[in-house]
């Protein structure tokens, strides 16, 4: 990803890319699968400070961020150096953040973010705080996180999902349907940190092994 495109992606995710440039970016992304992959990784790195950093990062999440950074060393480095975009800084919530995660987070925090929105998001609800307090200790990787491989639903599952979609809420429906659009056959790309497709077993693909726990360091 060239510096210019990185800038564009970064500005786009901030909602600050002018619409003419957004059009260009869109065209490039539609044409270029490799660029899309970089964009996906980049967005994931960005997410570590935007939405997710109000709660402690799990090891699984840190792993994914690390993978993302491994796959895009230039992006991370350039972003760290590129201080002009930095507008605000705040400590990562939660005490039990592993050193590697902290390093990633600090690196990531050099980027910009939806400043006012996320600053206000910091005081999580009391409910969230309780959940966080217990989970920060165990570093549990919940099975519901996208550690599970991107699965191609069998014909039967696809039928179920379509039949179900009419009862989903607006948002649920959109997510379910766009998820299905995205879930077409794709070639596994070994060794890039992404889950490899599991061969269909009994008409269903099984996800990665369930929740795995690590002791806190």
């Amino acid at each position: 990803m060239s510096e210019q495109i990185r800038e564009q992606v970064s500005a786009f995710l901030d909602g600050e890319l002018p619409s003419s440039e957004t059009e260009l970016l869109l065209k490039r992304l539609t044409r270029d699968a490799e660029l899309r992959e970089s964009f996906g990784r980049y967005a994931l790195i960005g997410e570590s400070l935007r939405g997710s950093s109000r709660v402690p990062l799990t090891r699984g999440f840190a792993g994914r961020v690390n993978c993302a950074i491994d796959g895009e060393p230039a992006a991370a480095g350039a972003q760290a150096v590129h201080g002009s975009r930095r507008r605000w800084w705040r400590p990562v919530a939660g005490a039990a953040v592993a050193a590697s995660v902290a390093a990633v987070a600090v690196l990531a925090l050099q980027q910009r973010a939806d400043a006012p929105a996320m600053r206000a998001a910091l005081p999580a609800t009391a409910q969230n705080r309780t959940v966080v307090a217990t989970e920060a200790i165990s570093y549990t990787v919940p099975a519901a996180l996208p550690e599970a491989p991107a699965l191609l639903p069998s014909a039967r599952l696809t039928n179920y999902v379509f039949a179900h979609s009419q009862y989903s809420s607006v948002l649920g429906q959109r997510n379910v349907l766009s998820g299905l659009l995205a879930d077409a056959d794709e070639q596994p790309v070994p060794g890039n940190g992404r889950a490899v497709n599991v061969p269909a077993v009994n008409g269903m693909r099984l996800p990665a092994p369930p929740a795995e726990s690590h002791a806190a360091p």
Partner: protein
Amino acid sequence: MSQQLRRGPRWLIPCAVAGAMAFALTQRSHAADDARAWLEKMNHALAVRNYDGTFFHLSDGRVETMRIVHRVKAGRVTERLQSLDGSGREFVRNNDELTCYLPDKHTILVEPRQDHGPFLGSLAHFGADVGEFYSLELLPTARVLGRSAKVIVVNPKDQFRFGYRLWLDEKTAMPLKSQLCDSRGQVIEQIVFARLAMPDNISDSELLPAVPTEGMRWVRQGLANEAAPPALLAFRASELPPGFHLTVAGAQTLGAATVPAAHLVYSDGLATVSVFVEAQPDRKSGAEGRADAEPEAPMQGLARVGSGFAFSTVVQGHQVTAVGEVPARTVEFIAHSVKSGGEPPRP
């Protein structure tokens, strides 16, 4: 004098704390009301507006570019959702049916719709029951797509449901960006618009699928009100995660099957889970009841479908599958509790 000074604050502190708390609570509930009002506006905008947008669908470090075209003309809704760079899949729906063009599977799947009103009319209204399991927050305004956006957070109160963060255009209440999050606030999936037009008129050609349909197999699913054997209709979830209750119970023919499956819908007011119960085909006579004649072994276990999950198990000789845009634990919980004659639990 000095005693009075010391005593004074002691009286004042509880009053001040109570006052501050009352103020904070009022503010908070106002914010929640505002958030609820914005969600209603969004529901309305999505249902009645014309729009043509291109968005990025980001999930698990992957990006897909998609286009959505939505038209309301003379009371008829037509919507087209198209993958621009990946599978070539397309969905087109109107008041009567949803048609799924799956070129990678050489299949066109048609799913009839029963609702004849505005397509998105029967949606969650974020009522009081929703408030019991989700908290709503209105965050300060942010910018998306160069526009000023209201930021609404729908936080699930437990781990049985997902939440949302929404960036709604201040002028139109259209969602410019949305994130699906787990109960800890981690983003599972997001949709970010790169371009969004709201034209007065959208021509028919914009709503036609680009997929060549020659040589594709058409598969039509049944309506969810078919007759089915009483034994099949006797299945219910005997236990449910907090807040979920039965909203629909029926039967419909799925895919190329020749016999209907029971279809139960459970909802907490926002998230929904469908449970499908099918009689297991008699192994000796092959895939009886299924015209596509794939001799399918029973499905078992968890699968990821879109942003949600499906969990399959076999109960009393029947294939039971729970599907929904909910965490894995929720579909697993519900599927495991399904049994024949299982009374729907009281909410």
